[in-house]
């Protein structure tokens, strides 16, 4: 019964880089157009989810994804605190937008890893009968 359609597998593979570029675009332009860290991260996570259509095996290392997600979460908390203590001048316009882009990137990757972990845990462990 384990026969997935070859056509879907092939053409989904064709779309991967497009979806990745689109996700990065949504993250990087989060401060001027709609979108941002959460939305772009969800788009990036959907790449991993659609990969399940092609290779339904458990070859993604959930442990290392979890470690990366924890590190990202730690840095998301620590970077604003560090900025608070250094007394950086916030009024400078250019630096402000760089700060926003950097934080959006971190949030985006954290959301991507988090949703991927949720999906694969649900599919391979929690969904068992």
């Amino acid at each position, binding site marked *: 019964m384990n026969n997935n359609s070859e056509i879907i597998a092939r053409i989904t593979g064709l*779309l991967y880089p497009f979806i990745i570029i689109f996700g990065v675009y949504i993250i990087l332009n989060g401060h001027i*157009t709609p979108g941002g860290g959460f939305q772009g991260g969800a*788009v990036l996570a*959907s790449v991993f989810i659609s990969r399940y259509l092609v290779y339904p095996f458990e070859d993604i290392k959930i442990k290392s994804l979890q470690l990366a997600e924890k590190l990202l979460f730690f840095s998301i908390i620590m970077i604003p605190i560090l900025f608070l203590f250094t007394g950086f001048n916030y009024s400078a316009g250019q630096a402000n937008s760089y700060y926003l882009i950097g934080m959006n990137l971190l949030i985006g990757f954290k959301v991507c890893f988090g949703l991927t972990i949720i999906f694969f845990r649900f599919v391979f462990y929690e969904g068992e009968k």
Partner: protein
Amino acid sequence: MSFYQIVLLVIAFFTAMVIIRVIMGPTIWDRLLGLNMVSAKIIMSIVILAIIQDSSFLLDIALVYAFLGFVGTVFIARFIERRGNL
């Protein structure tokens, strides 16, 4: 009322008709087909709305549906053909 607003209203009417089919539809595949059609209609409405408001960032949302709309449909179809196994 400009031309594009009338177009938007017509598309909204079509969407309502397809949703009636989805609610009526006897088999589950009819409903899935309706979901697919409504998704295409929503993409069109977003493009027309972007013309009315003259703002190109609305097209990003249409692109999201174009890229990811098929993932949900394919997963539901696969779920049905495997009798409740993803």
